[in-house]
């Protein structure tokens, strides 16, 4: 089992987490919404797998490259 890391592509604030630990996701599924530069940036899954860990909470500020979640693939 390999682990896929989802890192934040930008600095901003988590405004919505659309998945939970243990949930299975497919490529293209919405994972998380980050508000940055007054825009809601939707982060979609690039892989098929199961959410292994969530490393951020809603309202939390994140920096570019911060780990958001891991997906077991």
């Amino acid at each position: 089992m390999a682990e896929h890391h989802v890192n934040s592509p930008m600095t901003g604030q988590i405004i919505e987490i659309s998945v939970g630990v243990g949930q299975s996701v497919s490529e293209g599924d919405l994972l998380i919404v980050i508000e940055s530069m007054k825009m809601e940036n939707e982060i979609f899954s690039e892989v098929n797998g199961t959410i292994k860990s969530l490393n951020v909470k809603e309202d939390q500020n994140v920096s570019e490259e911060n780990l958001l979640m891991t997906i077991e693939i």
Partner: protein
Amino acid sequence: MPIDPKRETWKPGMPWEKALEDIEYITGLGREMGGAERIERQHKGGRYTVRERVDKILDSGSFVEYGPMIGAAEYDDEGNLIEFSPGAYVMGLGEIDGRPVAIGGDDFTISGGSPHNVRKHPTDFMQPLASQYGIPYIQLVEGVGHSAKSDEAKGHMGLPDGGLWWRGIELLKKVPVAAGIMGSVAGAPAAFALMSHFTVMVKEQSQIFPSGPPVVKRAIGEDLDKEELGGYKMHVHESGQVDNVADSEEEAFEQIKKFISYLPNTTNDVAPRIETGDPPDRRPEELLNIIPPNRKRSYDPRKLIQLVVDNGDFFEMRRHWAGALITGFARLDGYSVGVIGSDPMFMAGAMDGWAAEKYAHFVDLCDAFNLPVVIFLDMPGFMLGSHSEKKATMRRGVRALIASAEAEVPKIEFNVRKAYGVAADAAHSLGHPNGLNLRFGWPAGEWGGIPIEGGVAAAYRREIENAPDPEAHRLMIEERLLKLRSPFRAAHKGDVVDLIDPRETRRLACTFVKLAQPMLEKLAQKPKRIVRP
């Protein structure tokens, strides 16, 4: 068929027929490249030989080879050829979709593409020829450059003198140069590859670096495999060193052909018009509602571009790097154009240092090749924060701004949504002799020196702090200013040529590109700068 050392070789005085037989024989030896075993190894690695690559990229039967007899030849005392090893490069002229090109590629089956006992090099032959004939140059690179063994053979270590490069540099000023990075490429071949207007590498087959893993480990102790060090994830996604990635060699060839199709043969020509069959007055209905009413929401900017351009055909360059900005080529009414767009789905479309660099490079490229530029702007400004500061965003942004001002090619802009601050100035340069004069606004257009939310917090800070209810006071001021954001007010002042129905975008863009053609013919005659990769 290996060489036959007992075969008598033609000598002066013998019949011409014998000479022709021997030319065919020696050329045949050359076509065998590094031998059956090496060719099999190349194929086992999932890679084509250089001759197969040339055949696949060119129009069938169009290849005229340059120097097929060049190689290390040894004759016995009677004048018979007893040994022949072809030079490690294959090159010539040919056609792509009926247009002439010069092409060359390393033969990795011979000495790993390293120059060996005979000099057969593009700098001596193909680069001058492409320059002289004024035709695009394609290089298929697969080699690792200088070998320490050659120093031992020469008996001294040469001082690098830069003499290898000037023809390639001259070529960049004159004709389109495209490179396929076909395998592991290091040293001088890596530099040759990158001395191009367009580069593409093959996923998990190509790597590029100054030196590969063994040298890296020896020098700094870093222990990475070649894919980690110089594969597509490093150089197409992260560093931006290589423009595009392809899933296969065939796809890489298609990308090279596509890139060249949009460009003229030289920087002193205008790109050929191709009949696309897409009516210039087509009204893409979907454009009306493509921008969501909620300004915090994104839309697919590539779909927007595809709806406007001929047949939805958009060839993107540097897709995976500096994602806030989109750059690529398309046709409008058959005319070739450079397209710049914002991607609101990535960093809200804000310009960071990398996006600014991508912007400047692409505008330079369009200017060098006399391509009009069509811009679809949705830019909230420079990307803010420490990560963006580390990319020297403002200095690179200024470079983008200067590139825009220097570019003499005509530009047209559709302000599809946001345009804020100096970052948006990069696209405009209004008032400059080369400045953008055709700016159209969509109804979703909103622009200014700074977005209202941040602008109010900064400019009215003291007033807000001293209010009995600061939060309510801030909202009150924002509410007041929000009314000013209507693009109607800017249109009354002439900030845009017009506010338009988004469905009119294609018709206007096609009209502009057609009207720009005589100007392009004149610009083509001017001396050009080199586009630095």
